[in-house]
């Protein structure tokens, strides 16, 4: 708005300047020119001045437009980066990328091709084309014509008229007519390979260099977001693998060992029965029943742990449900407090949950405790989990009674480290055990809050 006012001031200033010039000239040389001559000269100066001012303001206007456009682009890029960053599903992300690119440059149509290892189009995501129109067009392009050119050479492509390019293979029947085209590759560090296409600007003008630059910058953001999705998928795969190994280890350490013992006792009972040593057989049968109860508890606890996963309601809700079930199953009293406000990244929440489950499983298996206290709270910016039992405790300097290292504690430490957390175990024979886990909240919590917003 300030330029509009400035234009008026400049014009008035010019008129005043011409009038002042005329007045000075009349005062200095009163007889040199008659009235029509003076008017002619004044008109000439005024016209020249208007041309100069016009050029100046046209230039200023242009600069202002460029600044406004860059500002809008930065804003759009910032928003797109925020929007893309929160997306963890590839299909939804690709749709957001193509929608965002179309909005950023102001194009009527947008498309994104995903290219496989052989350089063929594997998937084709569109924007600005209705579902009916897509149905009419038929199958996705295979990479012939102009789409193939961009794929193979990885170059940018900017055409004022699509149809006039000799490489164009034409549109299939039912395809909406498209004029100008802009295409850039999406070069990400992950195995993803794709191209971003825009066609027809809303203004009707062909795409210019500024549009191309904007789209290239946007494609870089898109590539980063795609990398993040790939990294997240890899992390998930690793987490699933780790979980499988943990299950295998638990089955080997727990259920398999007890079943082996059950088998040995059953054979011993048979021998006692053959030798008609009934009292020994009955004693062994009691131990066999205890073993069966043990394995039963182990399996039930395992199923309970698998069923409890960090839900959208947050870790506190999941922990509360788990603790209720665990108390009912084990008969060990649970007390404590859970801070509902603490939110972590989903992967961190899962690890905290598994550590709590492992700590409680240890309480059941080894401590002989009657009660356990569990607290989940914030302390000095760290989410803290405390599991304290009143059981028999152990000497942490000595290995377990079967001579093997304490795998459960080792697993808990590994889990804590995987989410940048730390774990501390305080125990002494006869003094109960306290497990204290601390997990950083900062970035994880912010991200989680943004995703749920």
């Amino acid at each position, binding site marked *: 708005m300030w330029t*509009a006012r400035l*234009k*008026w001031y*400049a*014009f008035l200033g010019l008129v005043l300047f011409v009038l002042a010039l005329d007045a000075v000239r009349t005062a200095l040389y009163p007889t040199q020119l008659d009235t*029509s*001559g003076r008017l*002619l000269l004044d*008109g*000439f100066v005024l*016209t020249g001045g*208007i*041309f*100069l*001012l*016009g*050029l100046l*303001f*046209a*230039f200023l*206007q*242009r600069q202002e437009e460029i600044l406004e456009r860059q500002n809008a682009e930065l804003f759009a890029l910032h928003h797109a980066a925020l929007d893309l960053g929160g997306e963890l599903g590839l299909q939804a992300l690709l749709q957001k990328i193509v929608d965002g690119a179309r909005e950023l440059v102001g194009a009527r149509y947008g498309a994104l091709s995903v290219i496989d290892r052989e350089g063929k189009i594997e998937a084709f995501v569109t924007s600005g084309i209705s579902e009916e129109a897509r149905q009419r067009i038929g199958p996705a392009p295979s990479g012939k014509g102009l789409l193939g050119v961009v794929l193979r050479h990885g170059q940018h492509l900017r055409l004022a008229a699509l149809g006039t390019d000799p490489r164009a293979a034409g549109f299939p029947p039912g395809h909406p007519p498209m004029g100008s085209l802009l295409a850039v590759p999406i070069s990400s560090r992950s195995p993803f390979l794709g191209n971003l296409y825009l066609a027809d600007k809303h*203004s009707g003008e062909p795409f210019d260099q500024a549009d191309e630059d904007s789209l290239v910058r946007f494609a870089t953001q898109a590539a980063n977001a795609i990398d993040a999705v790939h990294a997240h998928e890899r992390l998930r795969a690793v987490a699933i693998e780790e979980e499988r190994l943990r299950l295998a280890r638990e089955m080997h350490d727990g259920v398999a060992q007890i079943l082996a013992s059950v088998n040995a006792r059953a054979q011993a009972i048979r021998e006692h029965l053959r030798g008609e040593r009934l009292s020994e057989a009955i004693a062994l049968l009691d131990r066999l029943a205890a073993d069966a109860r043990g394995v039963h508890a182990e399996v039930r606890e395992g199923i309970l742990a698998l069923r409890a996963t960090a839900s959208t309601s947050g870790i506190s809700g999941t922990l509360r449900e788990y603790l209720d079930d665990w108390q009912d199953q084990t008969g060990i009293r649970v007390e404590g407090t859970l801070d509902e406000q603490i939110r972590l990244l989903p992967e961190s929440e899962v690890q905290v949950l598994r550590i709590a489950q492992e700590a409680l499983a240890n309480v059941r298996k080894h401590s002989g405790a009657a009660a356990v206290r569990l607290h989940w709270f914030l302390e000095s910016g760290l989410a803290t989990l405390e599991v304290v039992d009143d059981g028999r405790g152990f000497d942490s300097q000595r290995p377990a009674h079967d001579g093997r290292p304490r795998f459960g504690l080792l697993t808990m430490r590994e889990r804590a480290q995987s989410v940048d957390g730390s774990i501390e175990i305080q125990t002494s024979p006869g003094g109960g055990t306290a497990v204290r886990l601390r997990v950083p909240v900062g970035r994880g919590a912010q991200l989680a809050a943004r995703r749920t917003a």
Partner: protein
Amino acid sequence: MGNLRANLSRTDRALRLALGIACIAAALAGGVGGHAALALFLFAWVPIVTGLAGWCPLYVLFGVSTRRL
């Protein structure tokens, strides 16, 4: 003039060119004399140049455009 955004419609441009040519024709025809003929010659370039360029500086100053966007 590549950086100047046109602000004149086709009709506007045609009218300006016609006016410029008419000014020159009138001056040459000799119907007017003295300062008036000089004025016609001197100012004929304004509509001709703006008409040819499709851009008028006065329109820029007053934020006017006869060209449809």
